[in-house]
C-alpha cells in the first residue's frame, strides 16, 4: 500500500539528494553525474573566496532572523488584541479578512506591492500630500530588507495568529473569574494569566522557527528584487538559482545549496529535538 507513494517520493525527493555529488565533481553535463570526475572540495574552497558568498549568507541571516522575530511577535500581539474583543461577529469577520493574504502567491502580492511602492504609486503620492519627496523604494538597497520583512509580516500575520488564538482558547475562564474576584484589571490578567497560559505555545513556535534561519523566503525575494538591491537582498536561494540555472555554474550552485541544506538540516533537527525535550512536542 505504501509502495506508489514511496516510489514517488523516492524518485523526486531522495534521488535528487544524490545529485549533491555534483558539488564535489568537475561536472560535464554531457557525461552526466556518473561520467564526471570527482575533484573533492575544490568548489567549496572557491566558494569561500568569493565576495558573493559572504554577502548572501549575511543577507539570508539578517532577513531571516528579522522575519522570525517579527513573525513571532506581531501575530502574538494581534491575537492578544483580538482576544480582548468581545463583539463575536466582528471578531469572525476580522479573522476571515486577515487570513486572506496568506493564500495569495508572491507573484500576485509582489506585483501589487511593487505597484503600491512604485515611483508614482499610492505610497509616494501619499508622501507628496505631506510634502515629502518621492522615494524609489524598491531600487534602494538600504530599504530592501525592511520592505521584505514588512510585507512578509503583513502577508502572514493573520494566518500565524491561528495558533495563538487556539492556545488562548485553551486558558480556563475560571482563572479569569477568580482573578476578577481578586480585583485584577486587564493588564494584570494579561501578565499573570494570559501570557503564562500561552507560554508553551510561544516557546514552541520560537524553537521550531530556529530551523528556518536560513530560509529567507525565495518566492518573495525573487518576486520583489532587482539587480539594484542584490547587495542587501540577494539570499542564498536566489543566488543559487541565478548561478546554477542562469549562469549554468552547476557545481558551484550545488555546493552552496548543499551547504545551506546541510546547515538547515542540523538546525531543524536541533530545533525539533529541543521542542521534544522542552515541551514534549512530537511530529508523529
Amino acid at each position, binding site marked *: *500500500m*505504501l509502495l*506508489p*507513494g514511496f516510489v*514517488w*517520493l523516492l*524518485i*523526486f525527493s*531522495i534521488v*535528487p539528494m544524490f*545529485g549533491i555529488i*555534483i558539488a564535489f565533481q568537475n561536472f560535464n553535463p554531457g557525461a*552526466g553525474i556518473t561520467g564526471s570526475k570527482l575533484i573533492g572540495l575544490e568548489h567549496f574552497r572557491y566558494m569561500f573566496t568569493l565576495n558573493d558568498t559572504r554577502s548572501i549568507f549575511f543577507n539570508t541571516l539578517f532577513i531571516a532572523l528579522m522575519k522570525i522575530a517579527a513573525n513571532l511577535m506581531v501575530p502574538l500581539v494581534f491575537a492578544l*488584541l*483580538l482576544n*480582548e*474583543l468581545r463583539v463575536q461577529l*466582528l471578531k469572525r469577520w476580522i479573522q476571515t479578512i*486577515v*487570513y*486572506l*493574504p496568506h*493564500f495569495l502567491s508572491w*507573484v*500576485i*502580492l*509582489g*506585483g*501589487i506591492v511593487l*505597484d503600491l511602492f*512604485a515611483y*508614482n504609486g499610492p505610497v509616494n*503620492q501619499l508622501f507628496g500630500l505631506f510634502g515629502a519627496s518621492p522615494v*524609489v523604494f524598491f*531600487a534602494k538597497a538600504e530599504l530592501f530588507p525592511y520592505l521584505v520583512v514588512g510585507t512578509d509580516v*503583513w502577508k502572514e500575520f*493573520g494566518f500565524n495568529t*491561528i495558533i495563538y488564538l487556539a492556545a488562548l482558547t485553551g486558558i480556563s475562564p475560571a482563572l*479569569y*473569574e477568580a482573578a*476578577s474576584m481578586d480585583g485584577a484589571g*486587564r493588564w494584570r490578567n494579561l501578565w499573570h494569566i494570559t501570557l503564562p497560559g500561552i507560554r508553551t505555545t510561544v516557546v514552541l513556535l520560537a524553537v521550531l522557527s530556529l530551523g528556518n534561519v536560513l530560509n529567507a523566503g*525565495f518566492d518573495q525575494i*525573487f*518576486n520583489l528584487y*532587482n*539587480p*539594484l538591491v542584490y547587495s542587501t537582498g540577494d539570499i542564498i*536561494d536566489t543566488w*543559487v538559482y541565478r548561478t546554477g*540555472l542562469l549562469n549554468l555554474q552547476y557545481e558551484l550552485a*550545488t555546493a552552496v545549496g*548543499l551547504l545551506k*541544506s546541510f546547515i*538547515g*538540516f542540523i538546525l531543524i*533537527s536541533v530545533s525539533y529535538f529541543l521542542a521534544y525535550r522542552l515541551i514534549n512536542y*512530537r*511530529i*508523529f
Partner: protein
Amino acid sequence: MVRDQSFGSKWFDHMLIVLLALMAISCILPLWYTLALSLSSNTAASAGDVWLWPVGFNLNSYSQIMQDAQFFKSFWTSVQRVALGAGLNFIIVALMAYPLSRSAAQFKGRNVFMWMLVFTMLFNGGLIPLYLTVKEFGLINNIWALVLVGGAQTIVFNIILAVNFFRNLPRELDEAALVDGAGPWYTLARIYIPLAVPVLATVTLFSIVYHWNEFLYGLVFMTRETNYPLQTYIQQLVVSVDPATMSEDQYRRMAEMSNRTLDAAQIFIAMLPVLAVYPFLQRFFIHGITLGSVKE
C-alpha cells in the same frame, strides 16, 4: 467573564475595535486598489491619480487579456496542474496514512518509514540536482514535472497530518473490521476513508492552494512560454525585471512606461479563483490544521 466597566476600559474597547479594524482593512486595501487600478485608464494610472476608485473607468485592460490566448492557455495549464496534483495528493495520502498510522507492533518498520519521510522534509539536494533528475526522466516541458515535483514538496506534511488524525481514531475500529474478516484494503476503503473526510478535505485544499500558487517549477522545468502555468506567466510579464545593468533612473523610467492597468488586471484575474473560493473553504483550513495534531 466579569470585567470592570470603568471609563478607561470603555475607551480601550473602542480603540481596540478601531485598531483591529484598521489592521483587517489593510489586508484588503491593496487588493481593492488593484481592482480599481485595473479598471482605470492608463494615463491616470501612470500619473498616480488612482486611489480607491477607478479614474477614467474602462475595461480596456480586461479586453486586452481576453485577446491574449497565452493567458488562457496558462490558466488552463494551472487548472490541469491543480486537478492532477490534488487528485494524486488525495490518493497517495489516503494510501500512505493508513499503514503508517498503525502502531509499530502491528507494522514493523513503521518508524523507519516515518523517519525516512520526515527526512525528505528536512534535507533536500537543491534545485540543480532536482532539475537534472527531471531532465533524466524526460519530463522537461511536461505537466507531470510540475505535478510530481511540486507534489513531492508538500506530500509528507499532508501525510503526517493524516497519520495523526488516523491515530486518534479508536483502535477498536481496526479490530472490529478484522473480526468481521476485512482485509487491509477493505478496511481502508470502507471504514477509514469515509471517517477521514475532514482531514482529506483539508489536505486536498492545501494541495490545491499550493499548486495554484507555485511558480518556480513552472519557470525551471518549462522552457517554452506556451507551457507556463499561470503564476509563472504572470511573473514573467508583470514582475520580473531584465537583470541587465540598470540604474535607478532606468528603473524609474521603466516604471513610468509600463502598462500598469494591464498588469493590475492580470494580477486581479489570477487572484479571482482564490478570492472566490476562499470564503467557503476558510473554515476547513483553520479547522483542519488542528485536526492533524498529536493529541495525547
